[in-house]
């Protein structure tokens, strides 16, 4: 056993209102530079939809992530190392800038320097690549709140196997928001795809970074990442990606996207995992086992044996304490409410999502304060957002796991409702997850009340142990200038 710490995030889709504050603050911090105008290290997609870049989930097209070979070994979907080198003159799987969007700006001078005219002056868009006037036909968030969904929505690969059910018509339509950023995977396909060895995973916190000095611009990381979260800076011709705001994390502060989230839906914390078992966990025959395998990788931060081994592996006391208080551990492991995004890519992603429970009352059609729990549970199957859709997104198609999460959330609501409105502490011990009143109370506190210090439990980096920092200039995702 080799214990490592991983910075991880949970995003509560049940509370995400799609305001894009995370995207905007991230952009203003990291990608407001020429060459990266098109890049959104964090973006919020409306689902169903093809997303950004277009159809990023269609791995038949982009060949991202891993596949299990017949001998039970993992291989990159795009092919082995030799095939990479043979394709080095032209990467057939690369998404081009039109799959993201052609960046543009507006001719603001037309507004500010306009002489007095009969008609209102107009700021027209023009391309930041060519300077030509641009007729906008696609952008970073073209599908916001289902705009254009009748056209593009059907190409959403999560709708596979349920096209018959879902018509995306006005009466039956459903939607939710999906904020996306680099997953800082335990088994990152981008790292494996980089022939120059420029992308690496940090030992201390698991953050995946691009060494700007070592990157030679071969672009295999971009197609290798199944989440399409490595970007090509067309000015520097090198790869750039989300750094999980490590300069902030190192100082104990949450990422910019988490800090500025107006709905307070994000949680950041430490997870301990067994690095020796990563490959085994990523290699089950059935894709549906990936979620459970990944859960089993995470170690109980209260287990004395785990703590002893972690100390032997060089983890500091404040990190172990942070792991014990980690909201991510509670939500993902203890309560089992958060699920990984597309575990079938076999990268073991580390940004997890609490699925959105759409409004229950309409479905249950009671409007009463106290409904039979059976009625609520049955209603989950008839919810507006098809459970199959969420399962394709979060559990490789395993609807039972998603339904289980919903049942826990419904149980929590029932418990709190009767407590708040009727003043009764309804006994709930006979639920299949063994959640008692205290556990539900804790769950409630974390989901509904959690303050800044509860949502973000981030130990400082031990920079006093760092080696030659000058030597490392340029290796952490920034340009060295």
């Amino acid at each position, binding site marked *: 056993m080799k214990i490592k710490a991983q910075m991880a995030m949970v995003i509560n889709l049940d509370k995400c209102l799609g305001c894009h504050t995370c995207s905007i603050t991230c952009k203003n911090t990291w990608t407001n530079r020429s060459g990266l105008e098109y890049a959104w290290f964090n973006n919020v997609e409306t689902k169903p939809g093809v997303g950004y870049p277009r159809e990023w989930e269609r791995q038949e097209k982009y060949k991202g992530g891993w596949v299990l070979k017949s001998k039970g070994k993992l291989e990159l979907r795009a092919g082995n190392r030799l095939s990479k080198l043979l394709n080095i003159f032209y990467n057939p799987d690369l998404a081009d800038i039109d799959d993201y969007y052609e960046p543009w700006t507006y001719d603001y001078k037309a507004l500010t320097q306009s002489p007095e005219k009969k008609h209102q002056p107009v700021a027209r868009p023009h391309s930041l690549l060519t300077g030509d006037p641009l007729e906008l036909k696609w952008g970073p968030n073209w599908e916001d709140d289902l705009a254009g969904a009748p056209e593009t929505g059907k190409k959403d690969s999560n709708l596979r196997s349920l096209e018959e059910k879902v018509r995306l018509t006005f009466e039956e339509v459903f939607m939710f928001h999906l904020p996306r950023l680099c997953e800082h995977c335990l088994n*990152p396909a981008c790292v494996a795809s980089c022939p120059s*060895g420029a992308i690496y995973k940090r030992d201390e916190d698991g953050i995946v970074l691009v060494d700007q000095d070592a990157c*030679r*611009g071969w672009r295999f990381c971009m197609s290798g990442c199944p989440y399409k979260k490595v970007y090509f800076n067309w000015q520097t011709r090198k790869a750039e990606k989300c750094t999980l705001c490590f300069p902030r994390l190192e100082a104990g502060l949450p990422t910019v996207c988490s800090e500025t989230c107006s709905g307070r839906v994000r949680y950041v914390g430490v997870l301990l995992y067994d690095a020796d078992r990563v490959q085994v966990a990523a290699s089950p025959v059935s894709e549906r086992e990936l979620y459970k395998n990944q859960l089993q990788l995470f170690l109980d931060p209260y287990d004395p044996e785990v703590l002893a081994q972690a100390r032997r592996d060089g983890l500091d006391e404040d990190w172990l304490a942070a792991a014990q208080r980690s909201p991510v551990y509670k939500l993902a492991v203890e309560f089992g409410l958060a699920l990984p995004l597309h575990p079938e890519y076999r990268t073991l992603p580390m940004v997890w999502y609490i699925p959105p429970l759409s409004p229950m009352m309409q479905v249950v059609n009671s409007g009463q304060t106290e409904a039979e729990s059976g009625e609520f549970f049955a209603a989950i199957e008839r919810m507006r957002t098809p459970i199959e859709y969420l399962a394709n997104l979060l559990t490789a198609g395993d609807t039972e796991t998603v339904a289980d999460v919903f049942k826990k959330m419904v149980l929590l609501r029932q418990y709190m409702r009767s407590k708040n409105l009727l003043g009764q502490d309804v006994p709930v011990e006979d639920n299949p997850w063994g959640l008692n009143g205290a556990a539900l109370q804790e769950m409630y506190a974390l989901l509904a009340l959690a303050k800044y210090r509860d949502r973000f439990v981030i130990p400082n980096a031990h920079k006093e142990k760092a080696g030659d920092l000058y030597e490392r200039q340029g290796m952490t995702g920034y340009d060295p200038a």
Partner: protein
Amino acid sequence: MGIFWWAIFPYLMITVFVLGHIYRYQKDQWGWTARSSEFLEKKYLKWGSVLFHTGILLVFGGHVVGMLIPEAVTERLGISDKIFHTAAIITGSTAGFITLAGIVLLLVRRVSVKRVRKTSSFADMLIAVLLFLVVSMGLFNTFGFNLFVKSSFDYRATIAPWIRGVLVFAPDPGLMNNVPLFFRLHIIFAFAIFGVWPFTRLVHVWSVPLEYLGRRSYILYRSVGPVAKPVKEWERASGDVG
């Protein structure tokens, strides 16, 4: 002038080539990249890049065989002059046509596709033009010369010994006295490319990531903690994916 072009100029260019690379490698790791524009334009690049790169590798091999192996060696191996030349013209022309098709596509793309043109540096344009000139003259010398001029010019008795002389620091400019114009221009422009090489995207040639094939692990970790070993050795494997 013969002395300058055939005994001084090549060494000037080789010196700039060597020192330029050392300087840039030390000072500009950040700028050291293939400068790919595939992200901006894929359709023409697909054919242009694959044809050019395949062709230029074949052409490089051809030059090694044609220039560095003396006639005496091939004759002793039982390959007559005639067979050697015929083979050289056929394979050389084929490789030349592939390369020329590639560089023409790439150059036309660089100039005519506005996205690519607008995002090109001066060095990108310069190197595309130089390569086009050198490749087209090279192909003319191999294919066109035999087809149209029908002269019996023997580069193995003139250019080849001269270049071998250059490589051992004993150039004989006299060997180049009766070399036809386009052979001379081909050589001069080729050395010009060596001269600008370190300051252009061509540096990516030295970064072909062959080490990828021998990498112990797919997943690389680096530690922030103190390490005694140099950078490349930081890459520590954990769990092998094969």
